């Protein structure tokens, strides 16, 4: 399950730290085990100009947010959410290698999380950051005054 790519993202997370400006900030937790992520999105139109984050938790949860950021920054929100759907498919693959193979181009480093799908208890750890992104993007798009941050949501 612990691919070297995952451990790399865990030890050296990409784009970590909370940055301004942002249109929405969310805080998601995994209540069964206490993994946490605070995530901000900054939109340029409907494009994700930046995704910044802080978090604590296991290697899977923290590496997942790092790999996700690489994938989604620069894409439009609908494109990013579609990628999230692919990641969800990977998490539901129960370790079926053919699913990972098909999604390899789309998911880049995130395809390394395929092994997590064999461990139902850990899937939530990997999905937490994607849930936070979906939530934050929806909030950012609905903010009428783009300078007003939202947040505090679980």
């Amino acid at each position, binding site marked *: 399950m612990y691919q070297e790519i995952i451990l790399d993202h865990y030890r050296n997370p990409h784009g970590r730290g909370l940055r301004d400006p942002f249109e929405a900030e969310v805080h998601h937790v995994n209540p069964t*085990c206490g993994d946490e992520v605070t995530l901000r999105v900054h939109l340029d139109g409907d494009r994700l100009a930046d995704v910044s984050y802080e978090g604590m*938790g*296991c290697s899977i949860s923290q590496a997942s947010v790092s790999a996700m950021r690489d994938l989604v920054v620069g894409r439009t929100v609908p494109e990013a959410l579609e990628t999230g759907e692919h990641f969800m498919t990977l998490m539901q693959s129960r370790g079926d290698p053919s699913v990972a193979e098909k999604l390899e181009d789309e998911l880049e480093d995130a395809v390394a999380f395929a092994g997590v799908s064999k461990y139902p208890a850990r899937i939530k750890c990997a999905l937490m950051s994607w849930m936070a992104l979906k939530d934050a993007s929806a909030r950012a798009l609905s903010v009428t005054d783009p300078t007003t941050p939202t947040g505090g949501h679980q």
Partner: protein
Amino acid sequence: MTQTVSRPAVGARTPLPLDVEAIRADFPILSRTVRDGKRLVYLDSGATSQKPRSVLDAERDFYETCNAAPHRGAHQLAEEATARYEAARATIAAFIGAQPAEVVFTRNSTEAINLVAYALSNAATAKEPAFRRYAVGQGDEIVVTEMEHHANLVPWQQLCERTGATLRWLGLTDDGRLDLSDLSTVVNERTKLVAVTQQSNILGTINPLDQIVARAHEVGALVLVDGAQSVPHQPVDVTALDADFLVFSGHKMLGPTGVGVLWGRYEVLDALPPFLTGGSMIEVVRMEGSTFMPPPQRFEAGVPMTAQVIGLAAAVEYLQRLGMEKVQAHEEALTGYALAKLAEIPGVTVIGPPDTVARGGAVSFTVEGIHPHDVGQVLDDLGVEVRVGHHCAWPVVRRYGVPATTRATFYVHTGYDDVDALADAVRKAQEFFGVVPSSEGVG
């Protein structure tokens, strides 16, 4: 309780009080393997215990020979089912030195605590004056501790929100004990109830309940003891305890899931209004209103979990055959050995009392540089099944400044080989994640 006078040298493998090999043969699940043929090293009895064959047989036998709804119907099966159900109540009551009429069956400890919490708020609006004696309202205080499982914290928070009462709590010391320095101010004339665990599910601490009970009774407060982690692991006698309520769960003491116990002092139970209402708990029902049975029936609405109660009685009999003093001494030996083995590993820190004095067999620890989930994952791949996370005691892990811990818990089938497997697996996790501190043990 009585056999803890001479303590073995730390880390020594003194002969264990229980015959682990013989006991393992009684647990069918222990013969299976996990994760590609590895021996199952089950160190999560604190979450739920495994079941010996005699418990499984007792449940099956009930369904095969006399299944019927107890306390209703006049046919032979109903008579037999009622007799078996009430005999089980007597067995379980005797196990904690109680009268059968003081033993109420619930789904688990959580439901037993909620039963008391709701009875106390229902008391304020009870039609019968006799049921208002323990009513909780504005100006009253409920006391808990920072060590409680969520099951013995959240229901009291909710009771306070419903009634306007105030929640207060006793804090913790750095070495995992209750801080009783402000006991006499936290528990005061306004206190209506003190809810406290006998044995911490995360720290392993055994609390000095006599002091707390004495202070609570001095100011006329009730005491509820959470015995979910004590009744399975040490002798508990309600007369010696002198509390007003004791709760515990069947599934943590070799019994089935779906059955727990609320023990209450009879005169207190008798003055409480019901929590759940419906069939079995009524005396007379008219369209305009109803009256209720005396305890324990008043608190057992609906057809009960008969087979599970009978299974729990079989679990009690199994524990009685082993002897609870021996069970406690067995776990104490394992705990001392585990604390010593973990202390040998650099980077491992035990959260909780560092020795076996007034301590049960829940051993929580952190491994420097590795999140507990990742520790648990590596352990699981080696067949070592532990609990990781906040163990339903989030304020405790927050108090000790860690996001979560890895917890090993022991029971009657645990041997030194299981503890060795744990220590070896922790070292393997350190190797895997490349965090082998060069310093001496931190714990």
